[in-house]
């Protein structure tokens, strides 16, 4: 079963959004790469919906972005 690691960075602005997400990916890279977990980022910073998926995809992850109640949820999981 895949565990969701929640990262709520609402209220944060760039570059903190991307830096914090990259740190979280690095901290959980083993469980992410084994498919044991996926990272769910909550952000209200519009630019983060461009920068976070861009960076994650270049690191071999796949992403899905959805708008929920005025903010965005970016799900990052390892590409199978």
């Amino acid at each position: 079963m895949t565990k969701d690691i929640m990262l709520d960075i609402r209220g944060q602005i760039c570059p903190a959004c991307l830096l914090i997400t990259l740190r979280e990916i690095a901290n959980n890279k083993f469980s992410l790469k084994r498919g044991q977990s996926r990272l769910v980022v909550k952000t209200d910073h519009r630019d983060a919906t461009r920068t976070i998926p861009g960076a994650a995809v270049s690191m071999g992850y796949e992403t899905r972005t959805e708008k929920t109640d005025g903010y965005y949820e970016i799900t990052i999981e390892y590409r199978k």
Partner: protein
Amino acid sequence: MCSIFFIVSSQLLAGLALGAILQRSDFCMAGAFRDIFLFGDYLKARAIFLAVSLLVLIVYLERVGGLIGSYPPSFFASPSGADLLGGALFGMGMVLGGGCMLGTLYKMGSGKVLNLFTFAGMIAGGIFYPVFLPLKLKLVSATGFFPRWTALEQIAGMHATAAGFLLISALFIARWAGKGLLSQKGYAEGYLQLWKAALAIVLVVSAQYVFSGRPLSVTSGIFKMSALMAHAATPAAFASVQPFTGNSVRLVYGRIMPERLMNAFDAVGITQFPLIAGIVGGSFLSALQLREFKPLGVPPFGQIISSISGGALMSVGALMASGCNLWHFFGGLPVFALQSILFLFGIIPGSYAGSLIIKKAVCR
């Protein structure tokens, strides 16, 4: 000569348009420099280069066509070390503050609480205008050079300089466009690609230049807010402070109008206050329409300190360099003003230092 109603409405409309464009695209000059140093991401920098290149072309055509008259550029002085220092302070400030002066206004309008603190820092920095102005004048006097020159185009001529720059920039832009390097997929609702935003911003800025007769700016408006707030808080302390009480005149929209820092309805007040209100309002309306205007509670203390100090540094930097990045990038660089070129050279190390500080603070 335009009516006051026309001046105020035209500035307000320009601000509303800019605010909405900036909110939809997240066009960010602070991010353009910071993202290069932190992530090796040049997307925003390319968009700014595109905007400046298009402005070089349009402002050149406007000058040749007689729509705006200014050769050599009369809004800029001969260069000095103050422009370089101002650029460095401004560059560091905009990275720490999470946005340049323009960026702070639209992000604040879209509900970003941290940028409200950056704005407070900008106002606080502006209060020290009387302290830093004499220092700036001393620095200008000690480090000024090329006293007869204000723009690079005075060396090779207006036509050759514009043609040379446009030829080189066209090669870069065509190469980036061919490789798809001017756009990146954005998942935000109503996202406006940065290169499209650059085109829209250029249209607003160049049209406004023709109407008002001078490049867009918000810096003097910010300083005026600082002066008015400082005077309202402690009238006795600021009543006789020279830079706050000095008088001059400014030509706007074909009218010669008085300019006095303590007067809210002078040439600066009736142009820059509506522009500032428009930028904040345009961004607010755009965020509201997207159902994204949701200011959250108090941000972390460290980020508040970073935002306030960034805002204050930007104000001091803008004072030293006689303008913020809106003035220099979209007003000065298109006419190759030497002050603006030095400001750009200062911004590079300043934003690099700011990026290192931010990275260290966030990754602790």
